[in-house]
Structure formats: C-alpha cells, structure tokens
C-alpha cells in the first residue's frame, strides 16, 4: 500500500458541498459531514435542516453568540439565520419523509456498488445508533456519503456488497473518500476524480468493488479557499 498523502477531511467535504445547488434543503449528519457547511459560495443560498426541527439555521455559534436553545442534530450550538423556522420533531420528519430534503450527507462504515450503505450498527457490538439516518436515507432526494477509503487496518470500505447491516438499500448517489470522488451508477462506482498523486490502479487496489474509470477522470477539484 503506497504511503502517499491522502485528502484531508475539509477538502473532501468541500468537494461534496460544491455539488449542492442553489435553494437546496441540506441535511448534514453528525461528525465529518458537518464540515460541508464550512464551504460557502455566495451565489448559492442553501437551507440547512436538522432533525430537531431547525429549518434555515446558520454556522456553528461562537461562544459569545451561542444560544442555549438552538442546537443542530449533533447538539452543537448554531446561529439563527434570517428566515429560520422551527417545527417539532414529528413535523421535522414529515418534511424528511415527504422527500423535501434535496441532499443528506452522512458518514458510513461501508458503501456498496449497488448504492447500499451501512452506518448504524456493528453486529459485534450489541445495539445500534440509528438516529434519523434511516429516515433520511430512505426519503431524501439524494444521499451523499463521506468516509475514509479504507479501514484503520487498511481494509476496503467501497465494497461489492455491504457486510454490515445496511441503513438503506440502493440510495447512495455520490461518495467522497480521502482517495477520490465516486459516482454510484447502475454499473457500479465510477471514479470521477482522484486524489493528487494517486493513479486509478492504486485506488482500485484499495477497493473491493471494481471501479469504472470516468472518461473525463481528473484530479480532485479543490475549492479556491478565501
């Protein structure tokens, strides 16, 4: 396994956020996905939705602006943007189930080439932490996944079929890892962008699923950071 540098988490999330379209309702999962909200393009107006019923909240609150009654789905204090609306939990998930969420970004343990993914339960541990992930995965218009390309032990996470209990079948549209950007197509994972210095063959070597190489494969697009 080559010991080349991989992508950092922030550029991975920036890359997904570049796909968000003006006006989209965006739900960011706890953990790495919340980094997507650091990527701001002034011409795009996004509406951030969290499971606890905040619709249209803003960035994480600096301590002096924190409001103890306003948190995101991770329990982090966030800021109120003009236009914020609040609904209760049942109405918040009504919005999700109606299919109003344009994209949900989540972390995962595994993603499969058929669009399945797993992020809630490891059978060797009892129980699971499902939160709102199954509702979002089943109902959002698009599911984007961000995860490390390999396990700590170097094993693959982009698989032919998930080995862990799945969160939803066949829903993943786009995956970013620290090695590249992958579109989930009917034929499987299509490598669209690769981390600098990594060849498709090297990425395939870290991947269980067979990769399709995009005709227009290019190096990973970073945003121009201010």
């Amino acid at each position: 396994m080559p010991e080349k540098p991989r992508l950092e988490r922030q550029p991975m999330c920036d890359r997904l956020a570049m796909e968000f379209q003006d006006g989209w309702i965006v739900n960011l999962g706890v953990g790495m996905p919340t980094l997507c909200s650091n990527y701001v393009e002034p011409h795009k107006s996004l509406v951030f939705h969290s499971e606890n019923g905040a619709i249209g909240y803003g960035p994480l609150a600096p301590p002096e602006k924190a409001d103890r009654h306003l948190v995101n789905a991770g329990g982090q204090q966030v800021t109120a943007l003009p236009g914020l609306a609040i609904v209760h939990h049942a109405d918040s998930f009504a919005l999700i189930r109606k299919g109003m969420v344009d994209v949900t970004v989540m972390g995962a343990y595994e993603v499969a080439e058929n669009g399945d993914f797993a992020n809630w339960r490891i059978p060797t541990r009892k129980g699971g932490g499902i939160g709102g992930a199954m509702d979002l995965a089943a109902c959002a218009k698009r599911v984007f996944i961000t995860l490390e390309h390999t396990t700590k032990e170097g094993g693959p996470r982009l698989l032919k079929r998930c080995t862990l209990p799945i969160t939803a079948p066949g829903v993943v549209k786009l995956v970013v890892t620290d090695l590249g950007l992958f579109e989930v197509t009917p034929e499987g994972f299509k490598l669209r962008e690769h981390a600098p210095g990594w060849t498709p063959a090297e990425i395939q070597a870290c991947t269980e699923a067979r990769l399709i190489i995009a005709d227009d494969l290019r190096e990973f697009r970073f945003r121009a950071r201010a």
Partner: protein
Amino acid sequence: MKNKTYQTFDEAVVDIPDGSVFMSAGFGGVGVPRNILAAVGRQGAKNLTGISNNGGTLDAKVDVGTLIAAGQVKKMYCAFTAATHPSQVTPFVRMYNNNEIDAEVIPQGTLAERIRAAAAGIGAFYTPTTVGTELAVGKEQREINGRRYVLEYPLHADYAFIRAWKADTFGNLVFRLTQRNFNPVMAMAARITIVEVENDIVPVGELDPDHVHVPGVYVDRLVRIPPDGIWD
C-alpha cells in the same frame, strides 16, 4: 379555568406508580425535563418503560440515563441503543450490553411519528423508513403506489415529561427554538402530561393564542423551575 400549577416537582410526580410508561422529551441536551427526571429519581418508581430519543448521555447532567443507572427502568424505546462512537459507553449502553435493561431501537422519524400517532388516535401507519433493512424484518409491509412501506403502531404512554419556555396556569405551552423538538408531540400523546417551565407561569389570557404550541387541554401539571433548580 383550572389552575394546574404545582409548587414542587416532588408533588407533581408523587403518584407515579411502578410499571408506568413515560415519555421524556429533549434533543441535543435542549428541552430535557431534567427537574422532573430528578424528582422521579427521588420518588423511586420502578419497572418503568421509557420512550425517548436516547437513553442518556455521558455528561453529569440529569437525564433519562439517571433513572436507568438507578435501576428504575426496565425497557427503553429510543433511536440509540449504542453510541455512534464505541468509546462512549453510557450507563444505558453498559446495562443494555449486560442484559440488565431491555431496549428497542427505532429510527428517529418513526419514533416521532409513532408518538404522534398516539396523540392523533391513529391505529397504525405505513412509513417508507427501514424498508430493505434488518429493522423491517418480521414487520408487515406493503406496496402502495409502487413504493414499499412498513407498518408501524402508536407508542402510548402514561406520563409525558416536558420542558417548556412559557406556560399559563391552564397549561398552554410555548417553546423556544429547538427546545421544541419532541416536547409538543409527547405532551399531546401521553395520558398525563407534566411540565417544567423556564419562566413564571402566567395567568390565562397572557399568551397569544396564535403562539401557543401545545393547548392547555393536553397538560395536567405545571411546575416553575425554581432558581436553585436544574437550568442547563
């Protein structure tokens, strides 16, 4: 109109019998009825069944986990029976792993909707969530308009533990920002609803009818959080 104000939390929970089913609101540490939960801890009711987003956190604050750690709860319905990170072993997770407490993990939206179904007299409903996963195994499913759905049933409770921002003496409730979360649906679903209030409980007529999030008809007992109560 009836004045539903109680002077102390202990009075408001004194009659909760062993074996009761309770709902406890709150999400991300906000809108958690910590004063009521502390009183139930002092009161000592046993063999409770809990319905809540989670089974408590690792911080030192009073929450549902306080009752669980004290051995007062026999079963939890919640969206987390394991922490997202393996290092976060709460008392609930430890006891669940040791088979000292029973639990059913429910996707958060299904949890909210099952509570809402109880509040709305709905016998059962079909949701697309969990289709194709192990949580749907053994559940009745059907295809409606080309999409598969799973049949889910209401979650009823004897008591709802609620935290509100404002209230009047009849129990009309107002919540602030994401304090709202599970509070309204739980307040409307349970048989007996007990509320802790962060501001002075005002006379009826002082809350704008258009701003009330839970009508007072759903509320049974109100306690103003005292200055030395649990605030955060």
